């Protein structure tokens, strides 16, 4: 999918979700692109089927959940907890974990690292220019970079956010990569 096709994603979604019902001109523009672009047309058809499938799914019935019990538990808690502001400092561990995580993501993406010397070299490189490397895609894997670029991360994308947004599969691949590095 080309860069310009990427820009049609939002309007395609709007059309699919019926958000362009009152904007005939916008709808016509999307349809014109779909007519001219087989890639987007295929994407559109396929998303349409996915949305239709998702719309058919039964949601878990929560009518029988014990809402009274929930309310009672909350009332019991707040009876001894008057409204106020509570301050919780972030654990120091978080900082270290975030730094380690950035290194791990980038190491994983580097793909060809074996020796400990190489590992250290990359780590110091990351410390010096981790954010820039992330931003221009030199260090991270294509999958992670794609996620970073496509998901509209701010330039100072937080590492926690990056980790949060990794899927189970990506975490598994990361774990594997680390085992190789250790060995």
């Amino acid at each position, binding site marked *: 999918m080309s860069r310009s096709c990427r820009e049609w*994603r*939002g309007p395609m*979604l709007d059309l699919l979700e019926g958000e362009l019902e009152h904007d005939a001109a916008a709808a016509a523009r999307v349809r014109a692109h779909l007519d001219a672009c087989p890639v987007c047309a295929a994407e559109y058809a*396929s*998303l349409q*089927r*996915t*949305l239709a*499938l*998702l719309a*058919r*799914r*039964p*949601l*878990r019935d*929560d009518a029988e*959940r014990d*809402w009274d019990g*929930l*309310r009672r*538990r*909350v*009332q019991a*808690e*707040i009876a001894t*907890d008057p*409204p*106020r*502001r*509570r301050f919780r400092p972030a654990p120091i*561990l*978080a900082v270290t*974990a975030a730094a*380690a*995580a950035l290194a*791990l993501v980038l190491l994983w993406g580097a793909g060809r690292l074996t020796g400990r010397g190489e590992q250290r070299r990359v780590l110091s490189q990351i410390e010096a220019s981790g954010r820039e490397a992330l931003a221009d895609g030199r260090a991270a894997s294509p999958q992670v970079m794609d*996620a970073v670029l*496509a*998901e*509209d991360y701010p330039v100072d994308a937080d590492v*926690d*956010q990056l*980790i*949060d*947004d*990794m*899927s*189970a*599969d990506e*975490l*598994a691949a*990361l*774990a*594997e990569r*680390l*085992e190789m590095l*250790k060995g």
Partner: protein
Amino acid sequence: MNGSDHDDHQLIRRFLEGERWAFDALMTAHAPQAHRVALGMLGDPDQADDVVQEAFIRAHRALPRFEFRSRFRTWLHRIVVNLCLGRIRRARRVSLVSLGDLAQRLRARTGLPARELERRDLGERIEAAVITLPPKQRAVFVMRQQEGLGYAEIASILGRSEGGVRANYFQALQKLRRALAEHEEWDDE
């Protein structure tokens, strides 16, 4: 603001004037949807219960600072989604404490989603696929597709741009399509 938002604001005013029943009424009105969102994100009804309970306790503490410019639902969902993201993050952060443990611990957390996709019921299969989405995409998906919230409200809940939320939703749909394609015969058209 629609009628129910107006009602919510009235309830908050009554609560702030010292009428305790008004907070109960807010819980009655909003607990089910808050629970559905938490369940969609966490995949576990009991954890979702915990999150909703905690969210209302925090809401109770913070309501004196509620700004009547926003909807109560938006405000509550921000608490719920952040609590869910916090739980997911903590579960993952344990895995990031040391290089030595990391691979093993990550491994213990993986493999499950693919197997869960074998479940036969459509709802359960989709639920299992949703759980494999990255957490924030999961939040966007649940609020948009399942709960029908608008992009502007979701953006406000997540502190992201509307464009970013839309891109998230698009990616979530693409991933779900891939996850479900292997298990679904597309024979229903």
